[in-house]
């Protein structure tokens, strides 16, 4: 097999990837999403067993150009047609739908789906003829354009809380060097006091699971309030692609009171996106009651989140090495809350005490009762643990 040329994207191209509802076969979509990402696309991967509505909502909130779905479990004709219909119904007919399901999808069904508006269903024969990269190249090329935007009307709609308009404006501030002034003219922020919580921490500490548990409690315990999540993941320097993987862990966001947007760090060279301040401005103008900003995994010396949020939470685990390592962590000095997640792990109690000691040292609180410090142990992976919510409820 000769190495195939990789299509070079000219615009930021974003895809939502998933496997179909009640379908656990994720081997092929995993391969496809990896190649898409390696070819420079930003991938919002939702994992297996996703309903049409979940996929369509994610695609709209994330303002993507394309959706890629694998379907090996039957019912593909209904699934893909419904997806196209729902996209059209929600005014997002421009989002192109790609799919594949090996030999399960018959040639006549492929034709039926193409006729209905599915951009492309790839057959095993396509795979043999074009190779994986060939299929990916086709998808990228067809999606290599800016997403639609009508600045004035989108700004008006966003302020009414329209998720598609919000998504478009965030894309706009991500893609263009808009000055905040211009945005300010367009977007009137009525409430400056909307709390913005920053969640940051080491990679793999369980930030997303913890965020999900927070969201779930917010929805259950704070009626009628709306929540926006801006989640940042790193752009790969080598390829320009990014795996925006936070949505896959989130079960609670599938709710009309929740908006979520994933951003890649792109050229920021930090744990945040350069567009993050403007993105916060957009969701503030859209009148959300609570905003969560989740950063990508950070190192000991990173604490940028504290500069752009009202409150910040540092998520870590017991695995930080020797206690002296704690002295190097900037976030222990700055964070409003410190969470030691995966508290079921060995050594968590010791870690808890050491972190509290470091907390008292770094803030000169030598005589305070350590129990009053905002340092918490959580097990976000366990449903029954009570992640303490009273701080949240103060908002």
């Amino acid at each position, binding site marked *: 097999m000769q190495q195939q040329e990789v299509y070079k994207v000219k615009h930021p191209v974003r895809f939502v990837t998933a496997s179909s509802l009640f379908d656990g076969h994720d081997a092929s979509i995993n391969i496809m999403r990896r190649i898409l990402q390696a070819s420079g696309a930003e991938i919002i991967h939702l*994992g297996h067993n996703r309903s049409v509505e979940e996929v369509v909502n994610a695609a709209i909130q994330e303002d993507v150009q394309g959706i890629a779905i694998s379907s090996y479990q039957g019912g593909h004709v209904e699934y893909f047609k419904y997806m196209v219909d729902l996209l059209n119904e929600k005014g997002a007919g421009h989002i192109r739908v790609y799919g594949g399901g090996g*030999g399960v999808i018959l040639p006549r069904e492929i034709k039926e789906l193409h006729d209905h508006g599915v951009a492309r269903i790839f057959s095993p024969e396509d795979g043999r003829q074009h190779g994986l990269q060939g299929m990916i190249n086709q998808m990228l090329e067809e999606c290599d354009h800016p997403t639609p935007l009508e600045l004035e009307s989108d700004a008006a709609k966003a302020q009414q809380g329209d998720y598609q308009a919000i998504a478009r404006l965030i894309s706009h501030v991500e893609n263009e060097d808009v000055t905040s002034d211009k945005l300010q003219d367009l977007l009137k922020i009525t409430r400056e006091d909307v709390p913005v919580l920053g969640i940051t921490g080491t990679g793999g500490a369980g930030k997303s699971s913890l965020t999900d548990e927070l969201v779930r409690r917010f929805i259950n315990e704070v009626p009628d309030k709306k929540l926006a999540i801006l989640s940042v993941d790193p752009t790969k320097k080598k390829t320009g692609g990014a795996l925006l993987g936070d949505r896959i862990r989130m079960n609670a966001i599938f709710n009309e009171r929740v908006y979520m947007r994933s951003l890649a760090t792109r050229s920021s060279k930090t744990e945040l996106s350069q567009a993050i301040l403007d993105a916060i401005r957009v969701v503030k103008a859209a009148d959300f009651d609570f905003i969560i900003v989740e950063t990508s995994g950070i190192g000991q010396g990173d604490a940028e989140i504290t500069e752009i949020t009202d409150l910040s939470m540092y998520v870590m685990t017991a695995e930080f090495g020797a206690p002296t390592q704690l002295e190097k962590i900037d976030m222990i000095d700055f964070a409003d809350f410190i969470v030691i997640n995966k508290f079921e792990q060995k050594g968590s109690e010791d870690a808890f005490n050491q972190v509290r000691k470091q907390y008292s040292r770094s803030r000169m609180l030598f005589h305070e009762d350590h129990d009053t410090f905002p340092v918490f142990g959580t097990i976000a992976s366990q449903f029954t643990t009570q992640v303490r919510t009273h701080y949240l409820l103060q908002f």
Partner: protein
Amino acid sequence: MQTVHGYKEDAKKQSDIARKLYQLKGTEEEIGQVEELIQLIEKYEKELEADNKEKLDKFDELKETYTKDQLSYKVRDKEFTVDLNTESLSGIKVPKVALPKYRDWGDRLYWMLMENVPGAFPFTAGVFPFKRKGEDPTRQFAGEGTPERTNRRFHYLSKNEPAKRLSTAFDSVTLYGEDPDERPDIYGKVGESGVSICTLDDMKKLYDGFDLVDPMTSVSMTINGPAPIILAMYFNTAIDQQLKKFKDENGREPSQEEYEQIKVETISVVRGTVQADILKEDQGQNTCIFSTEFALRMMGDIQEYFINNEVRNYYSVSISGYHIAEAGANPISQLAFTLANGFTYVEYYLSRGMDINKFAPNLSFFFSNGLDPEYTVIGRVARRIWSVAMRDKYGANERSQKLKYHIQTSGRSLHAQEVDFNDIRTTLQALIAIQDNTNSLHTNAYDEAITTPTEESVRRAMAIQMIINKEFGLTKNENSLQGSFILEELTDLVEEAVLQEFERINDRGGVLGAMERQYQRGKIQEESLYYEGKKHSGDLPIVGVNTYVNPNPPSEDEINSMEVARASKEEKQQQIKNLHDFQDRNADKSEEALNRLKEVAASNGNVFEELMETVKVASLGQITNALYEVGGQYRRNM
């Protein structure tokens, strides 16, 4: 792992001692009693353990037993008599079990410690002395459309078999614990690639006309996430059959006391398996619906319920490597991950205070057989590791040491090109499974690479098993994998590789720790890619796919006109209507029942015990959604 290594080392040492003794005794015979010789013999006799000495003493007797014409033996207090040989058309008596011709005591002892006859520790050659008479390990597999249609298929498939061994495939809506619905993404999957079951009514229709308490009836259900709910529906179906019998015989409803009596008696005899293996779902197959922790707890609840109600003939879990293999793992990872999962369940049940000898017999295993060389010995290795660990690490009794497993031929080894060739692959896989004394076998239909099997393709798949069992001459012997140099070597190699994999899992904090690091999932994906790469490059020859390719491939029209099984609109509509009827009928009771279920779950009661009641009035989707509130939904991983 140390246990198994320790056992092997002991076996080597002890057989070396036996060899020395054999040599010394031989020397003694030649040169007569010399003081030094007598001392050496005494020394080695002391070192030889008593039960090993007994084994050696009885070897000739054992051999003698198997050369007779008949043998009587006991299984669970029941006496069985079997013919020990079969006369071929040429008049040769083919022995059912052939024993080695070794004379050296070292070889004899080593063989007995590492191999032994079928039915004897370490059960390398099989957990029972002989195959069951009158019951081939064949299972009739069905699942399509409505319960009525699947029921008809079950009757058609099993009409000539005295043993009704049914295996049920559910549609994906059921597998993910939801109810049928008009919403297109759900609607499209109702009754596809499996039967749609969402209420107790459905379950009753599914097995209508089969006597579920008959000892010759055995029902297996392939379901995992919602397994506790589906199992509760199944048990209730069996109980209702007996209640109906009572009413017919007595002309009245049973009293509460009589009802309880019927219930207890029914579930203590009902025979079958529910897959319910949640660990492999997270590692490979992805039909997880509840948080792993809650799902594990419900498995424990089922097992606890089994112990309290003396459910003896039903397997509470089928610890499955099949899906791990289908997701791309090689046979060694399949075996290692699966056995490790098995030991994890053992540890978890022990931690809940259950007695090993009360739950171990309820565990069963399920492997895939592909074409890789390791598959020839997969059962041998699994049985040996399991029995040694159960005996020497957990002190389990003989019944608990026996690893029983089901084989399904590999679906992944079937290809969409030249589908006719697939039966040849399946035949080879079935042959090694039968030779390895699998306890249960399913042969895939050749067209499964492209569609749900049709009646015609299923019939051919069944014929594969029948030809091996009834026509193939070597099958008259039941230990044909013993005594071959290469198979003994393969057994050792695979066993060692599996033990090393245990160590890697152990280094990552055990099965659950490794899962959190995505270790198993990552390894499966890696191995899958390795296979795909080899297949793509042609390094791994696959006839009709990357070599010997058909010069006249079927046209698009031919593919389009191929017979594919799809559920009809009427069937889907009927399922939705039946669901609504059930929900309406129970509208006044379901809410209360669901609240009670949530309470039991939240207060750490036995969820399964409560489900036995809940399923009478609530549908599958109503129940799973109630449980999500208290137990948490599954959180996906990358």
